[in-house]
C-alpha cells in the first residue's frame, strides 16, 4: 500500500477511536505506529510526547504531524493530520446539526460511561509503558513520583496551578542536574 494512503487510514482509525483526548491516544499510536508498523521507535514516541506537551495545540495533532513528516515529508504530515481530524470532524458536524439531545439517549450515555473506564486504563497503560522503558536512576524516578503526586494533590484541592509550571520546574531541574553532573565529571578527571 502506498505510504500516504497507509498514513491516512492508520491515523483516521486512531482518530475514530480516540476518546478522552490526547493521553489515551498515546496508547493507540504506540500500538499502531511503534509496535505494528514500526514507523517510529519507542524513544521517538517519548520525544514526541515531550515536545507535544511543551508546545501548544492538541497532542494528537503534534504526534500525527511528526509521524507523517517522518514517513512522507510535507505531504505525509498533511495527510496524517487530515486523517486524525477527519473522523471527529464528520461526527461532530453531524451531531451539532442533527442530534440536539445526543447525550440524553440512554444507551449512548451508558456506552460512554463504559468507554470512560477504558480511557482511564489506556492512559495508565501509556504511562506505565513509558516508565518501564525509562532509565531506572533515582533522580528520574523521584521526579515521576513527585510530579504525579503534585498533580493529584492539585486536582484534589483544586488549586489553580497549571501543569506548565511543573514542566518548567522539571526542565530547569534537568539543566541544573546536567551542569552539576558535568562539573563533577571534570573534577573527577582532574583528580
Amino acid at each position, binding site marked *: 500500500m502506498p505510504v500516504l494512503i497507509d498514513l491516512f487510514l492508520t491515523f483516521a482509525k486512531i482518530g475514530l477511536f480516540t476518546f478522552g483526548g490526547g493521553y489515551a491516544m498515546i496508547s493507540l499510536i504506540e500500538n499502531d505506529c511503534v509496535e505494528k508498523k514500526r514507523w517510529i521507535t519507542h524513544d521517538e514516541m517519548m520525544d514526541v510526547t515531550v515536545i507535544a506537551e511543551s508546545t501548544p*495545540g492538541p497532542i494528537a495533532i503534534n504526534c500525527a504531524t511528526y509521524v507523517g513528516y517522518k514517513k512522507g515529508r510535507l505531504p505525509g504530515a498533511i495527510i496524517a493530520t487530515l486523517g486524525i481530524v477527519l473522523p471527529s470532524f464528520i461526527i461532530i458536524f453531524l451531531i451539532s446539526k442533527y442530534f440536539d439531545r445526543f447525550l440524553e439517549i440512554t444507551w449512548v450515555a451508558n456506552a460512554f460511561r463504559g468507554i470512560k473506564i477504558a480511557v*482511564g486504563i489506556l492512559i495508565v*497503560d501509556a*504511562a506505565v509503558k513509558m516508565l518501564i522503558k525509562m532509565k531506572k536512576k533515582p533522580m528520574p524516578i523521584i521526579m515521576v513520583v513527585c510530579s504525579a503526586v503534585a498533580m493529584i494533590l492539585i486536582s484534589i484541592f483544586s488549586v489553580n496551578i*497549571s501543569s506548565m509550571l511543573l514542566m518548567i520546574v522539571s526542565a530547569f531541574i534537568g539543566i541544573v542536574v546536567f551542569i552539576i553532573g558535568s562539573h563533577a565529571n571534570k573534577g573527577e578527571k582532574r583528580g
Partner: protein
Amino acid sequence: MIYLGLLIGFLEVGFFSFGGAYAAIPLIRDVVLAHGWMDEEMFAYMIAISESTPGPIMVNMATYVGSVKGGIPGAMIATTAVVFPAFLIILLIMVLLKKALQNKYVKAALGGLKPCIIGIILSTGILMIIRNCNISLKAKPDALTIGLSCVLAAVYFGSRKFIKKGISPIMLICVSALVGVVAYGI
C-alpha cells in the same frame, strides 16, 4: 464577519493552549463567550459532547462552535485554525530545529521534562479512574464501576500473558462500550 472571527479566535486558542485540552477549555470559553457565540449552558453541553465523542477534544470543540455558527465553512475554518499552530510548530521543529534538539542543554531540559510528563500522564489516568468510580471523602463510591474497572483492567493487562501483545486498545474501547451498555442499562 463570523468567518474571520472564527479564524482569529481559534488560531489564538491553537497558539496558546499549552498542556492539552483541559488547559484549552478556559481559552475557548473566553473566545466563545466574548463573541457571544454561545451561552454558558450551551458551552457546557458542547464540552460534554466534545469529551465523549472520538477525536482530540480541542478539535471537536472548534468543529462544534464553527459548525453551529457558520455551517460547513465555519466548521472547516475553526478546525483548521485550531490545528494549524500545532502542525506548524512540529514542522518547524523537524525541519529547522533538528540540530537544536541535539544541543546538550536542550537534551538536559528534555531529560528533566520526560519524568515530569510521565508523572502527569500517570496522574491523569489515576484521577480519571478515581472520578469514574466516584471515589471521594463525601460521596458513596460507585461499586459497579469499580468492579467493571477491575475486570476490564485485568482482561486488558492479563490478555498479554495469553495472546501476543494482548488485546489492542481499540478492542478494549469497543468491549468497554458494550459492557457499559449492558451493565449500566440493566
